[in-house]
């Protein structure tokens, strides 16, 4: 029933600049009913900008926006207008009030009244109906702060549906979800498309695109560079269109296993870490990382991986156990002393822990190494500048401009800065890497993986915590699986190459694997 003319959302020649940077350059896009339409591209390619223009959050500098065939004057466009015409958007960062209930969040801004009083019973019923119809289970009366991340996302989607929408735009919806939740969300989105909605999915995860989207629009540097059919193209084809060159989706590596006779660098014995409430986040955990070995740490989020890494760095107190680096006990040392002793840390939360966003790149590269750059007359800016230029070039950071503000960089380039810094510590012997490629574009992922493998080649021991199983399988010599704060099992060497390795890890992650 869809002809070429019934695009519910049509953009033609849309441009938008931020200062001197052209984020969107005369972009054309047509979204039709009944399809999942993926908008892919590297970080900074202009995907989110384009959708925020379509949603009316950002004003276009030029071009036409049509909703259901009707031209919307640029200066009159707004989210309110978009919602009125059936366009809804779910942002990457949720916009919910944690202390309010699900239904209160949904009606916020357009509260229905009955006899002058707030009517929550009506919407709650409507929400239950929508939940049932689309498989978006969530209790309307629950408070948002008690919900998991996946449930919060469902609330965001329900809010858009409740407002009534024909076009649902989702910005990187899977970035925060566990694999099982991703599958579930995709089922929901496919159902929505089948029921006649248009779904626009902003993503840079190619397997997702191939799994779900019938139409794929590829953006690069603010322009649409390709339109593909997601059902027939391969991930490699999309990757090439996104980056503009061949990309290795899986980096080359040597045989698995630590080099023979490698010394033990990091030894953790009987480590116990408690959460704020006194429950154990990590209990009686022991592990060993040898020189030149990458030890993967798998697990569903919330099973203690974050707490383990933070306790190893010294950001979180340990309740019991010992941590030693090349025979030296670290338990009683502060973060700074542990870094000096040879730990490196690529934190999970890049924005809050990895970088000072308002510092320049060179200042960020000096973080944790400030002592090295201080001479008799304070910070040696010249030496720092020389080192920064070298690291930025080696780390393939763009722009390789020591005075650029870290905030202005894309996520991938920010992460490259963190990696470059942690790998550059002269004393670094063990690198703790937490989710090093989360929210990072594929060009940067390749570079980060190469950096981790290069460190391994130099004899650095790496503990790699990741929610990305393919990443763990590609890089690790051994993979430990954490479940409820303990190591539930491990896969090593050939086991990781055996067919079904991912499934085996999956079983261990859900506690179904039993002890090995």
């Amino acid at each position, binding site marked *: 029933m869809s002809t070429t003319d019934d695009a519910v959302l049509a953009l033609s020649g849309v441009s938008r600049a931020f200062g001197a940077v052209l984020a969107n350059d005369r972009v054309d896009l047509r979204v039709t009913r009944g399809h999942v339409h993926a908008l892919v591209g590297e970080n900074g390619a202009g995907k989110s900008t384009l959708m925020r223009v379509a949603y009316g959050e950002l004003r276009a500098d030029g071009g036409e926006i049509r909703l259901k065939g009707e031209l919307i004057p640029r200066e009159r466009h707004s989210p309110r207008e978009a919602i009125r015409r059936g366009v809804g958007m779910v942002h990457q960062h949720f916009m919910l009030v944690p202390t309010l209930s699900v239904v209160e969040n949904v009606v916020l801004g357009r509260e229905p009244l009955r006899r002058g009083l707030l009517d929550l019973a009506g919407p709650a019923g409507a929400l239950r109906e929508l939940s049932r119809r689309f498989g978006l289970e969530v209790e309307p009366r629950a408070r948002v702060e008690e919900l998991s991340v996946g449930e919060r996302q469902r609330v965001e989607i329900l809010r858009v549906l409740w407002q009534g929408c024909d076009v649902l735009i989702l910005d990187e919806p899977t970035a925060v979800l566990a694999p099982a939740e991703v599958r579930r969300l995709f089922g929901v989105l496919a159902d929505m498309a089948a029921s006649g909605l248009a779904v626009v999915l902003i993503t840079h995860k190619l397997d997702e695109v191939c799994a779900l989207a019938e139409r794929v629009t590829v953006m690069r540097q603010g322009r649409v560079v390709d339109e593909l059919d997601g059902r027939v193209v391969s991930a490699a084809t999309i990757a090439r269109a996104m980056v503009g060159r061949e990309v290795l989706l899986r980096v080359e590596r040597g045989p698995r296993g630590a080099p023979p006779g490698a010394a033990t660098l990091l030894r953790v014995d009987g480590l116990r870490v408690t959460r704020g409430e006194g429950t154990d986040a990590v209990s009686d955990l022991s592990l060993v990382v040898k020189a030149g070995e990458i030890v993967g740490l798998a697990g569903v989020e919330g099973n203690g991986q974050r707490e383990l890494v933070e306790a190893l760095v010294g950001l979180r107190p340990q309740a019991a156990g010992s941590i030693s680096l090349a025979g030296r006990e670290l338990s009683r040392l*502060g*973060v700074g002393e542990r870094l000096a002793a040879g730990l490196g840390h690529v934190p999970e939360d890049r924005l*809050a822990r*990895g970088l000072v966003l308002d510092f320049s790149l060179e200042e960020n590269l000096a973080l944790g190494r400030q002592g090295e750059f201080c001479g008799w007359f*304070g910070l040696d800016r010249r030496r720092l500048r020389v080192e920064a230029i070298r690291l930025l070039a080696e780390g393939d950071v763009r722009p390789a401009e020591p005075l650029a503000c870290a905030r202005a960089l894309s996520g991938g380039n920010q992460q490259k800065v963190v990696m470059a810094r942690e790998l550059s510590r002269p004393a670094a012997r063990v690198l703790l890497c937490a989710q090093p490629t989360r929210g990072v574009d594929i060009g940067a992922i390749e570079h980060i993986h190469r950096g981790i493998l290069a460190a391994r080649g130099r004899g650095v021991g790496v503990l790699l915590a990741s929610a990305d199983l393919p990443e763990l399988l590609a890089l690790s010599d051994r993979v430990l699986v954490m479940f409820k704060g303990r190591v539930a099992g491990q896969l090593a060497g050939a086991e990781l190459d055996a067919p079904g390795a991912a499934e085996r890890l999956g079983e261990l992650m859900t506690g179904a694997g039993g002890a090995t």
Partner: protein
Amino acid sequence: MTRAPVMREALVLGISLLSAMAAGSLLILALGESPAHVYGLLLRSTWGDSYGVGQVLFKSTPLIFTGLSVALAFRAGLFNIGAEGQLMLGGLAAALVGASLPAGAPAALALPLVVLAAALAGAVWGAIPGVLRACFGAHEVINTIMLNFLAAALVLGLGHEVFLPETTHTALVVEGARLPALGLAGSAANLSFILALVAAAAVWFYLARARRGFELRAVGLSPGAAENAGVRVRATWVAAMATAGALAGLVGCNFVLGYKHYFEEGMGRGAGFMGIAVALLGRGHPLGVVLAALLLGTLSHGGMAVNALVPKELVDVLQAVIILAVAASSAALDRGAGRAGQ
């Protein structure tokens, strides 16, 4: 990268001064005077002769100290509303130590001692909210405000013991503990102004070059990232508040050591709060703080001279408009520059 922000700051200040002058002109016209005449008199009485210059420097000196105090704490992510109390105790300490020295104490010994006393008293008073923040997470805004009241009460309470009978001031400090005047036509300007400039240079060096200053800025912008880089965040808070308190405590030099030679109840009152405005006007940068303090010092002294023509409250209006305009126009420029990226 560095040129653009400087131009922007200049633009902010230019816009603010112009709008303040415009608002002031309207007010002057409404009072039936000529704006050109009033502004001319204001300028002549301040920067027109060496006495005027001296008085401006004298009035600017405490503002430089308190402006630096607020700015330094701010760079560490803390809001020091307590300069008022810190400067009171700094002044009292300088006066008490200065008065208790033997009469013939040489300046080389006495001066460092009294200056140190002022800084130390301020530092202790500043460190208290720093420790409360670091150990218990108590917000420094509330605590610095409360400590202002405590400081005032402490001065009165101690005054009972240390003030000269029937007065509200202490005994004179010994000759050796006095800061010489700058010799500007009998104005009150004294060596404290130079001391304030030295303090500004030291704060600049600390923030831009020193290792601890680098760490302090990291803590101010992102405590999480600073902690991850091995910086001791809580210790940095305490150190920043103590240093801020010391800077405010040095205000005592200007009045006690350089002008009256005794501490008097109410001395320097208001300079602590004006320090917040100075730090805002100076955009948290030591050079900006010095310039902002000179501007407000000029208005403060110029107000006396134009009082014959228009009420001296005119300068309060000018001050207020400048501060409002700086706050508003810098926010507007931030918005206009937009968030780069997506």
